[in-house]
């Protein structure tokens, strides 16, 4: 049974959470009874049928028109995972403070084929994360202690060290990380951290590299025994 059929919950009250956990268990059982040699596998999900923004969208109203589909429990798991992927550091907040979980919701709810592929990975992946966490430490992923969370992620987060059988969860993690990073670094906070200073209309000639940037590349080029030509 695809997990989507058990994710028709919206509110996070106890009853609902339980219902959701049963769904997650069902997904886990599905995985467990899969072909042992193949490891964890997930079933296809039904495609979202909502309308897209169309071939001629109105740029004065850029809100995504499709309904959001993630459950509260899924959002909790997504939020916690995103914040472990990019923990807050100095001036730079955690992803959950910059709306990343909401963006992931927009992404997996979109009625387009690429996003559908990610939806199958992410919705099943988040359920797997909770299910696995409960099996190991008795708590859903978001409530597990940091050491337990990391122990779990270490089995799926590094491409050369994926635990055999967990290839699918590793694929989920990799996509989730990629979307998290994309969402994070396209915000003003992300630009500041990474050093993007564009989108500033200016007059006159394009100024080119700052003196510091030019001196730096000159030293690099000459250090390689090559010839530097000033721009």
């Amino acid at each position: 049974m695809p997990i989507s059929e058990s994710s028709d919950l919206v509110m996070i009250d106890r009853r609902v959470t339980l219902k959701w956990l049963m769904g997650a268990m069902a997904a886990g059982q599905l995985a467990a009874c899969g072909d042992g040699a193949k490891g964890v596998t997930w079933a296809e999900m039904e495609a979202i049928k909502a309308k897209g923004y169309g071939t001629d969208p109105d740029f004065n109203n850029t809100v995504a028109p499709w309904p959001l589909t993630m459950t509260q429990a899924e959002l909790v798991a997504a939020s916690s995972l995103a914040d472990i992927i990019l923990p807050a550091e100095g001036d730079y907040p955690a992803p959950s403070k910059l709306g990343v979980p909401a963006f992931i919701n927009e992404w997996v709810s979109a009625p387009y084929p690429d996003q559908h592929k990610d939806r199958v990975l992410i919705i099943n992946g988040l359920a797997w994360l909770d299910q696995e966490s409960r099996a190991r430490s008795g708590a859903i992923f978001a409530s597990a202690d940091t050491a337990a969370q990391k122990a779990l992620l270490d089995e799926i987060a590094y491409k050369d060290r994926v635990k055999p059988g967990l290839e699918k969860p590793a694929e989920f993690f990799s996509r989730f990380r990629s979307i998290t990073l994309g969402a994070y670094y396209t915000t003003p906070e992300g630009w500041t951290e990474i050093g993007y200073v564009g989108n500033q209309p200016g007059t006159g000639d394009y100024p080119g590299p700052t003196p510091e940037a030019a001196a730096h590349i000159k030293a690099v080029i000459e250090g390689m025994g090559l010839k530097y030509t000033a721009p």
Partner: protein
Amino acid sequence: MTPDEPHDAVVVGSGAGGAMAAWVLTRAGASVLMLEAGRDYSPDESPMLNMAMDAPLRGVGTPDKRFGYYDATVDGGWDMPGEPYTMAEGSEFMWWRSRMLGGRTNHWARNSFRMGPYDFKPRTRDGLGVDWPVTYDDMAPWYDKTEKLVGVYGSNDGLENHPNSGPGVLQTPPKFRVWETFLKAGGDAINIPVVAARRAILTKQIDERSPCYWASACGRGCSIGAAFQTTTSLIPWAKTTGKLTIATGAMVYEVILDATGKATGVRYIDKATGSHKEAKGRVVVVAASTGETARILLNSKPNGRSEGLANSSGQVGRNLMDTVGSNISAYFPQLEGRPRYNEDGAMGLHAYIPFWDYKRIQSGEVDTPRGYHVEIGGSFGDPGMGVGSGLDGYGSSLRADVKRRYGSRIGFTQRGEMIPNANSYCSIDTETKDKFGIPVLKFNFAWSDNELKQVKHFQTSMKELIDKLGGTLVSEPDEPAKAISKGGEIIHEVGTCRMGSDARDSVTNQFGKTWDVDNLYLTDGSVFASKAHKNPTITIMALAMRSADNIATRLRTGEL
């Protein structure tokens, strides 16, 4: 005037070729009716300074908007609902359409490399393909006029087969950015040139169009007029003559001939009402794009002739060519952690690699008969959804990796010449009609060994350059047969109604006038006799200007 009244000229299409023809003709005093299948459009609609974060899905491409949410293309793309095209078994072809006023000029990358002397006489050089009916010297003044009018930045480097423009024609190119200077250092060491690119972008004000303000992707459309598109230039200029009538939502499907074999106009479907209409003119100019122009001719069946119109040579739809494309990208540790500054610049090429290996082709040391150029991309851009690609793990080390890697990756894109071959053409699919009831195009497409060898040359050369600069490939490129783009994917399709000096093996003469119908002209990429590696649009416009000049003279003398 209204679309129902007879005009001096009926022009089909408002893209590069159609708008240039309309402007030249109206300026010469002719009344012009422009029929455009798409909707009215102005880049005032462009969300110039919106960021990715303001768009659904951070602006990534979707089936609704293949090149991203903000891309200027409306009602177009690889697939258009209700307007299919088909492919012969075993063929793959991608056909990009932009059904809107201004066509694909609203979002093209503006790379504008004029063709050179070798490019107009390819058969004379290596015995392959056909020669053009014009020489480079015939075309040079038209390139100068076009580049000056359009506004093209670049430099005159005097390189073999990359001709200089006339004095005072080019605008000053923007400075190289750090990574471009870095590439130049590597190229200099192994004799691969890295020079200023040429793009149809203003760096100085001309007329009412402002110079580039160094922000905002040109593919969104440029509302300040710096990036050339017909909707901020040729079309409004033609309107100010008072001689241009535009009908949008006008889907042309055939050319009408009278009993004497002269064209009297075209038939079109008015999309708003669904009614079939006729537009009349003394001359008919078709510039609906390479594929669509062939489709209109093939669907026009004067006196029930099954081969279509202007097709006594049998060449209509034949000789379909696209640019050869493939990619390599690499990380350069030497660029990691470099000082930040604003690298948006002209949001595209400041520098490029022109083809350099002509001598070794001539001597036989290199086995690919035709060349290519390399378009390069790097920069500290808006990080976008791809910022995490190639990264591993999680936690604070991941944060550090993102910062370290930013701006250290360079992409190399091959843009090469394809030689026409008998397996690449389009014809009418008699089984399939679009939502208007018009029979659709069916594509056949195949690369030949010539193109595959060229991909190999590109891969070898770029690996050498990357190596010289201490870079590491993001991934080893596939073998050429897998690495090469699909037909049409580079969106430089040309050649379906080629010009020539002999009516037996070409569709038009050197002025785009069809051999079979004296007052029917073609002024888009369909008339190309070869597909040099240089991006086609500046040549489309130079040819269209020359052809329209010929039409204007003939209208004036009463010949038409």
